[in-house]
């Protein structure tokens, strides 16, 4: 039970920080809307809805990257990560707490992005929403861990997209499939499988990323 309490405390800390500083969320919101506007002009006249559905996923993945690049910034700037690692808690709780916070940010961004997409391009159906939610889990699980790796490196923000995008390709496949396919269940099931596999892997391996 104390494990869960730790996770909740850590998530609350991140949300509170964001509420006070308002660094990341406004940037993500502005970014996703500008990207959608750029796509309006990137798509040639008469391009079909399917292409726009694909671009929605590009926008979401890049917006997530923007948020993930800042995910560990508060800890890094004040050297708090060392303190967290030394705290008497399971280290995977740090990962889970951060992932949950990133999930909240991402969901908040999508609360704006999906209606905006529907207004600009094409209606959003239920299977797309389900796909977005499932993909979010994968993005947050993988992204938080990779961001911790990137934060330990010299190149930091530069390296995160390189680490993240190859791993995000299956998520994009699943998400786009859920949006455009005739039988979205298969793609949603695939996204669920991806989430389960990588969440377990991240949960088990995070300890090694932050400790020596």
């Amino acid at each position: 039970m104390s494990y869960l309490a730790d996770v909740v405390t850590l998530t609350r800390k991140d949300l509170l920080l964001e509420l006070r500083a308002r660094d990341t969320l406004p940037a993500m919101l502005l970014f996703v809307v500008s990207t959608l506007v750029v796509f309006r002009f990137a798509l040639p006249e008469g391009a079909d809805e399917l292409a726009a559905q694909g671009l929605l996923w590009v926008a979401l993945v890049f917006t997530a990257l923007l948020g993930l690049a800042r995910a560990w910034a508060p800890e890094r700037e004040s050297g708090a990560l060392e303190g967290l690692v030394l705290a008497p808690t399971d280290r995977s709780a740090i990962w889970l707490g951060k992932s949950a916070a990133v999930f909240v940010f991402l969901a908040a961004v999508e609360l704006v992005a999906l209606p905006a997409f529907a207004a600009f391009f094409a209606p959003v159906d239920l299977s797309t929403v389900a796909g977005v939610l499932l993909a979010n889990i994968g993005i947050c699980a993988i992204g938080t861990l990779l961001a911790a790796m990137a934060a330990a490196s010299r190149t930091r923000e530069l390296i995160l997209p390189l680490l993240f995008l190859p791993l995000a390709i299956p998520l994009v496949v699943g998400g786009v499939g859920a949006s455009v396919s005739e039988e979205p269940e298969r793609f949603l099931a695939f996204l669920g499988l991806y989430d389960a596999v990588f969440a377990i892997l991240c949960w088990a391996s995070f300890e090694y990323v932050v400790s020596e």
Partner: protein
Amino acid sequence: MLAALAAMLVGSSLVLVFFVAPEDADQGLSQKIFYFHVPIALTAYACFGWGAHKALLLLWRKDERYDLESFVAIHQGTIFGALTLATGSIWAKASWGHWWLWSENQLVLFLVLFLFYSAYFMLRFSLEEGPRRANISAVYALFGIVLVPVSFLAIRLAENVIHPTVFTREGPQMSGTMFFTFCVAWIAITSLAYTLYRLELLGKRLDSNLRELREALSS
């Protein structure tokens, strides 16, 4: 010794491929690249698997030795992966007239893996040397081996969206000599990879020993 064995095997597989194995009735000479392309691809998988295995051992036993072994295996895997992309692309050009076909699942998978493992090197070289780097590289290497089946599944799924027609897969229809040649080529490439792995490991170990000696000398 190992190098001589590998060289002999590669030589004999070359002879087998070009002089013994019958020419493919359908594709002619260009089919011969199959004897290199497929073994190279299988070897690349083996290298990635070997690297992940060593990475797991590192996390498990905390022995620094495994870090270098895992790195070298992945380095070899990436080289063979790049060769797979090159040979596959040449074969595609010869058979279908295009350098790149998205319908070739295995090739697309190798492209994803190539990008993934290129990022591995970027990550590794931007981390400070030490146990932290070893741990992070190992975790990333483990992600890679999980990504192989997941990506393969994803690419198969994506193909169904883009090309609704299902390709019928014909089994390995090979005559006896062709199969024998293929097996020899496979063993040859694997032994070549293993030789390179040992050589690079030897070089890297020498390097680090030399550096330690130098540091000891200067301090």
